[in-house]
């Protein structure tokens, strides 16, 4: 018997042999005792295995087994809900934080510039004053809060 013939005998046992090949295989079974014995062996194995599927039994109690399944169902439901509606996390904070920090930085720079400008002006005034001391006159009125400089 060739490998192909052996597989055809099995396909016949399983009812999966093409109709066009069935007559040839039946002739082989009638003429070859080994082929017929193989056909019987394969058929018997198919029948006995199908009728005696090994039985498994969950060792856990009904309550414990179910509690594990229930926990997994709830976990997956929570995960699915979280994926659908993400809670504010670090990423959403960053989304707001970046522009806020940017605006704040600009505000600080502007403030610093505004604060720095009078200082420079004052310094310049002092310098001007020191340079012009010989040819200038200053009048201050504390009561009026006014200071007047005459520069010649």
């Amino acid at each position, binding site marked *: 018997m060739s*490998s192909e013939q052996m597989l055809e005998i099995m396909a016949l046992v399983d009812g999966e042999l093409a109709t066009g090949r069935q007559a040839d295989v039946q002739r082989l079974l009638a003429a070859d005792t080994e082929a017929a014995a193989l056909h019987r062996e394969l058929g018997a194995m198919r029948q006995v*295995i199908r009728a005696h599927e090994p039985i498994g039994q969950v060792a856990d109690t009904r309550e414990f087994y179910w509690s594990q*399944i229930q926990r997994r169902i709830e976990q997956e439901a929570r995960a699915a809900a979280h994926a659908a509606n993400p809670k504010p996390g670090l990423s959403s904070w960053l989304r707001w934080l970046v522009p806020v920090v940017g605006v704040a930085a600009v505000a600080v720079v502007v403030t610093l510039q505004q604060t720095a400008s009078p200082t420079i002006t004052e310094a310049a005034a002092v310098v001007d004053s020191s340079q012009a001391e010989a040819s200038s006159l200053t009048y201050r009125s504390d009561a009026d809060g006014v200071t007047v400089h005459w520069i010649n």
Partner: protein
Amino acid sequence: MPMSLKNDYPSATDEQLVGWSREGDTEAFEQLVFRHRDKIFARALMMMRNEEEALDLSQEAWVKSWQRLHQFQGESSFATWMTRIVINLCLDRIRRQKKMRAESIEQMEEDLGGVERHMPIEHANPTEGLENDELRKRIDEAMGKLTEAHRTVLALHEFQGLEYKEIAKRVGISIGTVMSRLFYARRRMASLLQGLKRERKE
């Protein structure tokens, strides 16, 4: 549905329990789990040959079925639908573990040319005179001695009732390989059962 009948889960049919489960009734679903858990676990154990993995996969199958209850159309029985889910999970797990690759010289030989051709045909019925429970036990033992690739094809064909074409699709192999593996698995089972019978006699 009257409440009195709805609460009578043990006497409800699978179809009724599925219907209530779809509405979010976890008690009805728990009844389905209780009713079919051993069968689903047995199928996973048959495929994986590892109790821990089988338990994990059987529970995962129940979680998946809860999530997909709306897909159950009732074309097959609920038990058949459930076994399909657990088998698919087992096949995915096996694929991930890359267990389907040639795992022994024996399997490599079979893939290359077929040691099954040289195995003697068992003329005597190796299961003759055995009680059902004893036979079931021996079949389980013999299946444990098959390589995973052979056992998978045999289980899908004999217990899941899948045709060659469907097995080829599920496992990702050619129909020729399915036939070759199934042929080898059956012949090996006959030989193993005969061997077990001899061992017991001695």
